[in-house]
């Protein structure tokens, strides 16, 4: 048997770990740049707040209920996530982190899983101060179903186990909408509904061959998993990273070429540092800048920049990206841009092309020095045209302190 453990309202809960005074308050966490709400706690949901609404629409309700608003504090969330994952890993024979607040655990050969589930919840609560839910099942798809049931059914106390015996599984699946099954997207759900498949059980009972021909192998495998077969393995989608994306909205709009180049070079520096940390080299860089989706007249500019050779050199990449931006630049009210590195290769297996100028050793050494100086996400050394801390940097007005990753921000304990 497997388990999926996920944290309850993760970002919002993280904000209360070092703020006991907020544990009974409605809390909203905003996206990058404080654009819209990405997480709500139970209190906020009960008061009628909704996810993915832009801040200005929520503002009257926030004022009315005196709800607490936070900008995303990824330093804190990342640290707490790590604590949760490490705590969970000790319970199972294998584990796979699925997202910042979800982890798969392998309980093959274990017995009395419900008791283990409750023990995990209690331990994570004690070690980290965060609430979790556990869904057990014989494969990943059933774990996902169980985890949703654990969330919805109060009496489950956070633990749901879909047993191997058929009747309990069928009862749960019968009431489970097919659109909420893991891996069934909204478009697929509409098509399935048209075929008369509304519940997860109806998908499980449907003819597998015709599912494959109409929807492809993934939906067929999903249906098989709902029947208790195992199709999606542990660590299955762990592949070498195919692309690296750095995408941000600006704190205020950008109209002109120079600042657009400047801020994009800043994102490129981040992306190239990630590339080198993965021990990879890049050939193609996609640049995109776009206007606001809320403004009505959505505009974007894009350019795919091909470098003369695979490289990990930020200076080379910056030179070509600057030219690439100039080529495609048109004046708009830009609010975000993205840098995407593709055509990645591992540094070691790489066979240099005869005609390709190879990255020099001096350049590699220089990059190593830069990465050493910038250890730990710090921006100590950077290109002259890259912004230091500019007015376009991400707006995180309501960010809580970095309680766990910055000496100056550690919690203050009252000894008085």
């Amino acid at each position: 048997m497997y388990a999926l453990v996920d944290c309850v309202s993760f970002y919002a809960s993280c904000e209360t770990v070092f703020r006991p005074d907020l544990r009974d308050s409605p809390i909203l966490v905003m996206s990058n740049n404080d654009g819209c709400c990405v997480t709500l706690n139970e209190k906020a949901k009960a008061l009628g707040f909704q996810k993915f609404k832009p801040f200005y629409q929520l503002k009257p309700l926030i004022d009315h209920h005196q709800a607490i608003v936070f900008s995303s504090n990824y330093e804190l969330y990342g640290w707490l996530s790590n604590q949760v994952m490490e705590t969970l890993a000790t319970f199972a024979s294998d584990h796979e982190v699925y997202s910042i607040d979800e982890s798969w655990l392998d309980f093959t050969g274990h017995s009395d899983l419900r008791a283990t589930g409750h023990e995990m919840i209690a331990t994570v609560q004690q070690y980290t101060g965060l609430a979790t839910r556990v869904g057990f099942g014989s494969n990943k798809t059933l774990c996902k179903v169980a985890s949703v049931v654990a969330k919805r059914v109060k009496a489950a106390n956070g633990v749901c186990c879909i047993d191997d015996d058929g009747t309990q599984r069928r009862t749960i699946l019968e009431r489970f909408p097919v659109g909420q099954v893991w891996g069934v997207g909204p478009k697929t759900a509409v098509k399935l509904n048209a075929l008369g498949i509304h519940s997860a059980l109806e998908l499980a009972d449907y003819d597998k061959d015709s599912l494959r021909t109409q929807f492809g192998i993934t939906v067929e495998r999903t249906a098989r998993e709902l029947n208790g077969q195992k199709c999606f393995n542990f660590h299955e989608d762990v592949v070498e990273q195919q692309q690296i994306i750095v995408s941000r909205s600006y704190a205020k709009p950008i109209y002109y070429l120079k600042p657009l180049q400047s801020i994009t070079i800043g994102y490129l520096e981040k992306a190239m540092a990630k590339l080198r940390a993965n021990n990879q080299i890049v050939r193609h860089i996609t640049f995109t800048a776009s206007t606001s989706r809320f403004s009505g007249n959505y505009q974007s500019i894009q350019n795919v920049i091909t470098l003369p050779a695979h490289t990990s050199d930020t200076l080379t990449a910056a030179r070509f990206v600057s030219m690439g931006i100039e080529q495609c630049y048109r004046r708009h009210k830009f609010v975000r841009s993205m840098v995407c590195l593709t055509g990645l290769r591992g540094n070691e297996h790489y066979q240099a092309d005869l005609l390709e100028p190879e990255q020099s050793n001096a350049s590699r050494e220089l990059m190593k020095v830069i990465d050493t100086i910038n250890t730990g996400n710090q921006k100590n050394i950077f290109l002259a045209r890259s912004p230091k801390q500019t007015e376009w940097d991400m707006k995180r007005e309501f960010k809580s302190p970095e309680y766990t990753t910055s000496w100056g921000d550690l919690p203050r304990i009252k000894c008085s």
Partner: protein
Amino acid sequence: MKPCNLPDKPLPVLAGHIHAGFPSPAADYLHETLSLTNLLVTHPSATFLAWAEGNSMELVGIFDGDLLVVDRSLTPVQNDIVIASVDNQKEFTCKVFDQKNRCLRAASNYEYPDIDCIEGVFIEGVVAHSVRMHRPASYVKS
């Protein structure tokens, strides 16, 4: 053109320098460098760090500005130093855990009231260790 007799794989390189003299007699006794983290943090996935503020714990050796290593996995026993949240106050409080009298006590020459372990008082962790900064700690205040 490459010389044809070189293997594709990188050649194994001996770690360290080769000196012609007598080998270091300490080489066989090398151990890992001592790590303060390993000494002070017994349960990494349940430990956080914090600064102490105030003089109410001086008699147990915790002074203003000391670094506290708080372990959330430990169950407090009599006279443990604990971190507690009290009545939804914004900051955690540091006290001595008095299990026998079901209360949290200060440890100071000054007067501080005891806090009864009743509703609204939650023990958040045990101060397993504390670190004194005899010279100011060097970190950037943000």
